């Protein structure tokens, strides 16, 4: 479980986050959604420790991240995995070397043990025969899978995904969504996903936080979206006329 307690963040006079207070639950795919500029990425970066909040606290289970020194922070980081928007694979390394990188840095595994773990992770994301390939030789969807494999190689307790579906076709996006959801449950993780992909919201939105200009606009489960009276949520999710029509028809039972 990750808890954001009264998070405020400003860059100079510009207020980005305004009192975010939310619990990201374990074994669930927790979604941060909102329009561009709503503060999603800043919140994710604060949660993962890449940015410091102006005020407020972030708790990883019983650990208050704000009170940690650099060494303790690095120790905690080993239980964190992250999938970046552009996958952030090291392009001078092969797929295998990318996944091996955290193992080389932080474990005393033998070569055989590392190979076993790499093979397991690649199998888990359904990638075979790409060990020696370089990121530039892979499709966007395959790069995301390698990114996920690298993120879970150290068996993290917390997984963060920044726009995991950006640049992917709808079919591949659903495959990536399902993969993240399955891994979250299998590995007993707390997963936080930053997205503005409406398919993802309706597919894997176990616990959703909607941001509007840095403030919490709405929270809930994907199943509560249709019944919600929140106009901003409705306008955001059903933004296109086509989706609005679909929603109205759903209400009319057509």
């Amino acid at each position, binding site marked *: 479980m990750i808890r954001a307690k009264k998070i405020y963040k400003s860059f100079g006079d510009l207020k980005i986050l305004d009192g975010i207070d939310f619990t990201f639950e374990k074994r669930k795919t927790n979604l941060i959604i909102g329009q561009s500029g709503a503060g999603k990425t800043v919140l994710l970066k604060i949660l993962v420790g*890449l940015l410091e909040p102006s005020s407020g606290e972030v708790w990883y289970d019983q650990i208050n991240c704000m009170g940690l020194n650099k060494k303790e922070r690095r120790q905690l980081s080993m239980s964190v995995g992250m999938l*970046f928007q552009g996958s*952030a694979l*090291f392009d001078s390394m092969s797929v295998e070397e990318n996944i091996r990188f955290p193992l*080389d*840095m932080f474990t005393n595994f033998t070569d055989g043990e590392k190979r076993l773990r790499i093979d397991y992770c690649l199998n888990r994301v359904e990638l075979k025969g790409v060990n020696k390939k370089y990121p530039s030789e892979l499709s966007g969807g395959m790069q995301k899978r390698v990114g996920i494999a690298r993120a879970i190689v150290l068996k993290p307790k917390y997984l*963060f995904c920044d726009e995991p579906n950006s640049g992917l076709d709808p079919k591949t996006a659903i495959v990536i969504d399902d993969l993240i959801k399955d891994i979250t449950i299998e590995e007993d993780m707390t997963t936080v996903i930053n997205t503005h992909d409406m398919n993802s919201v309706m597919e894997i939105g176990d616990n959703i936080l909607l941001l509007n200009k840095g403030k919490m606009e709405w929270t809930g489960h994907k199943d509560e979206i249709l019944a919600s009276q929140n106009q901003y949520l409705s306008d955001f999710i059903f933004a296109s006329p086509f989706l609005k029509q679909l929603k109205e028809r759903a209400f009319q039972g057509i």
Partner: protein
Amino acid sequence: MYYKETMRQMDDIGIGSLKIVLIISIFIGAVVAVQLSYQLGETLVPKWYVGYILRDMVIIDMAPTITCLVLAGKVGSNIAAEIGGMRQKEHIDAMEVMGVNTTSYLVLPKIIAGLFTTPLLVILAAGLGIGSGYLIAIIGGYFTAAEFLQGLTTYYDAYNVFIMIIKSLVYGYIFTSVSAYHGYFVKPGSIALGRAGTDAVVYSNILILVSDYIIATVMTG
């Protein structure tokens, strides 16, 4: 991992720069020999002085300073672009999230590699510079081999070699650390990445020249 990365950087900076060091050092020695022969040719100064001045000029200043100014251009821009590209493509963020100390992993191996390989490259440049000066002057008929060897072995002071090593260490530290700094703190965008490379070279060169003056003042003043 740190050892492997340091070795990779040594290969990049050291072996990767051999060709350019070879070329510039040959021309440094050749030009100094021709120029000195021209300037001292019609004077009463003995010809063996050319070998003596060329040796000390190359060892004390030409080899370390010109080699490192060129290395700052070649290696410095490469370091700034490599680290800057990693910053822009979120590779550094990815490492930070993993718990990697990115300054230790990305910057330190480059500085260590610079400190180890720069003196070796400068020693090589000095040797080649003196050798090429000798060859060019003999071929061009500016002085005889005996005159050059007499100059080369006269007034030799090992302290000058010590000055050369100190300069190469300082310059090696300057161009690796300054370039890494500009790459590490690059702003988003391709224009900013290009500017980081340029700034890395410009600031490295300025600092090398300033420290050249300071070292000269302190060690020979």
